């Protein structure tokens, strides 16, 4: 991957991010990128009966960055990735706000789409963040979903985040 030795492809921050600016960095100073695929996750406002007024994200400082960097390294090993960027916000977010950006640059689209989806499935089940919703009923931690473990399993990675049993 064409990143500088001490520039991480991963940032954890409270502040919002500029999607266009982040995508632009994947092509800065190079013309070998033929495909940039990206995903943005946002805060949903909940169903009419259970409006979410805020989402608060906690994380494990130090581990979070390392964990996602390791996932990016795996994506590079599995797919032809020229560069990647992951930005994940923490703290108190409101409905409609951006939470996470995953972006991948490749020479062709298949690797870019695959690596992007792979990184999201991996992040959902292995990155140490925890979400807490604020609704009219009070605050409640969001439950992990078995469907996310199943999504990661489709890449051949055994996952037991929301499921019983050791991974």
């Amino acid at each position, binding site marked *: 991957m064409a990143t500088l030795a001490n520039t991480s492809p991963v940032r954890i921050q409270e502040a919002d991010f500029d999607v266009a600016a982040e995508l632009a960095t994947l092509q800065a100073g190079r013309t070998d990128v033929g495909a940039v695929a990206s995903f943005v*996750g946002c805060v949903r406002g909940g169903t009419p009966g259970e409006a979410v007024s805020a989402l608060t*994200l*906690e*994380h*494990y400082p*130090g*581990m979070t960055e*390392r*964990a996602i960097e390791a996932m990016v390294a795996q994506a590079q090993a599995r797919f032809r990735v020229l560069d990647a960027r992951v930005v*994940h916000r923490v703290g108190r977010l409101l409905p409609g706000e951006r*939470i*996470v950006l995953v972006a991948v640059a490749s020479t062709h689209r298949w690797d870019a789409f695959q690596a992007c989806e792979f990184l*999201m499935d991996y*992040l*959902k*089940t*292995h*990155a*140490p*963040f*925890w*979400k*807490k919703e604020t609704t009219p009923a009070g605050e409640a*931690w*969001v*439950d*992990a979903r078995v469907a996310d473990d199943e999504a990661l399993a489709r890449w051949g990675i055994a996952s037991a*985040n*929301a499921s*019983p049993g*050791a*991974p």
Partner: protein
Amino acid sequence: MKLQLRYFASLREALGPGGELEWPADVALPATAGALRDWLARQSEAHARVLASQRLVRVAVDQVMAGPTTPLREGAEVAFFPPVTGG
């Protein structure tokens, strides 16, 4: 012998953020993350409830995802937390 213990999310709300655990020099550390969880579960009613073996609790050792059989060494940082919900 010391370990650095950390809790996150609902475990942190129930048990506090964690801190340093120390065992006398002549007492063996819990050998694995699972053994530590079992030891912690015996420390109070709140610990027993939150760390009960049937509860889904994940563990990291030295900031890397681990499991119940992951061995512990002197000075290790061990974190317990609910299933993750990022992204």
